[in-house]
């Protein structure tokens, strides 16, 4: 007859197997987000996004138009997924709760603010470079948590933050050669908007967002982002015409695919969190900076400099230190 000890052992083995599968989902979340950024960058080869201009107003108009498309398609794919899995009613139910409203507030930071900066960064500096810098958003979140949530920072996290800053400097030190990205530094600066926006969103998650079904929450988040873009941001920044024009060009297919990769990345991220824990899931997710270099090399002709690779590795290492104790990350028995 099987005993209580047998049951506990079997549960431990089950959880270990679960955690290992979760690592795979974590890798998928990082890889698909890296691929998302690179495909998004490829959409900029097509009109109306392929506008060569150094006028900030034009740059912002293009950025908001493509970001609106990205989040719109991402929300579209997620809605169909949630509909298929019988959760469409959860959208309204969740919006009627405080955590649901916090998701919407977080969407303003993670959507229009962050994604516009992200979009501009991809356009002006190339996906591989922009994604490298944005990967330090957990470090920004950790700093903001000190002020907003009164959290204390342990020495490991300080070292991680310092590594992120060092890595960002290294990435920015030498832009890619040639004249493909004449506004490289402006692009990297705007990428920091994404870092800030996602960092704030991470802090807001402390206010009950972990109660919500993550697949529904991300669907609401992307839908909120798209609605705010469509109703407010596009008209204010003269991006509406560009947005609609993009549906008639080759950019459409790339943005739809980028949105799909983004949706898959978010879904994979939450599966990884469920199966292998928040620290490990996020640690694997931020490897997107490295995946963006790989996919950028395979799919585009962007110059991959030594500085980019070294800087991205430093940022990734620093972010992992911010997220968790490396010894605990490696111990799959502690999920």
């Amino acid at each position, binding site marked *: 007859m*099987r005993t*209580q000890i*047998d*049951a*506990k052992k*079997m*549960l431990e083995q*089950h959880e270990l197997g*679960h955690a290992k599968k979760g690592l795979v989902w974590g890798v998928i979340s990082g890889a698909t987000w890296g691929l998302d950024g690179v495909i998004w960058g490829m959409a900029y080869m097509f009109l109306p996004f392929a506008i060569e201009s150094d006028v900030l107003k034009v740059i912002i108009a293009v950025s908001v138009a493509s970001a609106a498309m990205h989040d719109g398609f991402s929300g579209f794919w997620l809605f169909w997924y949630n509909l*298929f*899995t*019988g*959760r469409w*009613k*959860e959208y309204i*139910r*969740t919006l*009627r*709760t*405080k*955590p*649901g409203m916090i998701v919407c507030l977080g969407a303003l930071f993670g959507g229009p603010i962050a994604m516009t900066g992200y979009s501009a960064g991809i356009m002006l500096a190339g996906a591989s470079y922009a994604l490298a810098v944005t990967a330090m958003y957990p470090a920004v979140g950790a700093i903001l948590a000190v002020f907003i949530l009164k959290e204390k920072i342990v020495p490991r996290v300080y070292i991680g933050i310092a590594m992120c800053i060092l890595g960002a400097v290294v990435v920015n030190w030498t832009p890619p050669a040639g004249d493909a990205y004449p506004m490289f530094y402006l692009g990297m600066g705007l990428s920091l908007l994404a870092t800030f926006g996602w960092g704030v969103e991470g802090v807001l998650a402390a*206010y*009950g967002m*972990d*109660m*919500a*079904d*993550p697949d*529904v929450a991300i669907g609401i988040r992307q839908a909120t982002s798209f609605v705010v873009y469509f109703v407010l941001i596009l008209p204010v920044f003269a991006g509406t015409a560009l947005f609609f024009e993009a549906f008639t060009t080759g950019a459409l297919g790339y943005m739809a695919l980028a949105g799909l990769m983004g949706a898959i990345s978010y879904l994979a991220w*939450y599966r990884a*969190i*469920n*199966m292998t*824990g*928040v620290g490990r899931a996020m640690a694997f997710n931020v490897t997107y900076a490295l995946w963006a270099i790989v996919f950028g090399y395979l799919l585009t002709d962007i110059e991959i400099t030594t500085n980019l690779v070294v800087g991205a590795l430093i940022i990734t290492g620093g972010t992992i230190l911010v997220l968790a104790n490396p010894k605990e990350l490696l111990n799959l028995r502690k*999920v």
Partner: protein
Amino acid sequence: MAQQVLPLRFRILHLLSDNESYSVDEVMEALKTEYMGEGQFTRPLMAVHLQSLKAVGILEHSEVYFNEKDELMTKFKITEYGFSRLSYLPKGWNPIAKSFGA
């Protein structure tokens, strides 16, 4: 006025706010009148929700045993952190127990 239907995960949390332990099947049985017929109300998805709430520290394993079919069964109960999250439930959905562990 009828209480609003909560999102399923919120309702799971409210159910477990009595500080008792529940298995997946017991949660399904307790909530079937409210969610039966919905595509999301399946045993596999319910197991995912419970595991997910455990992953974020809202629930924890309380019992593990083999049933009569020799299948591994687990039960979940709310943690102190999870009990603190009950303040985010909408009006009209007060925790069943007065305090954690009560």
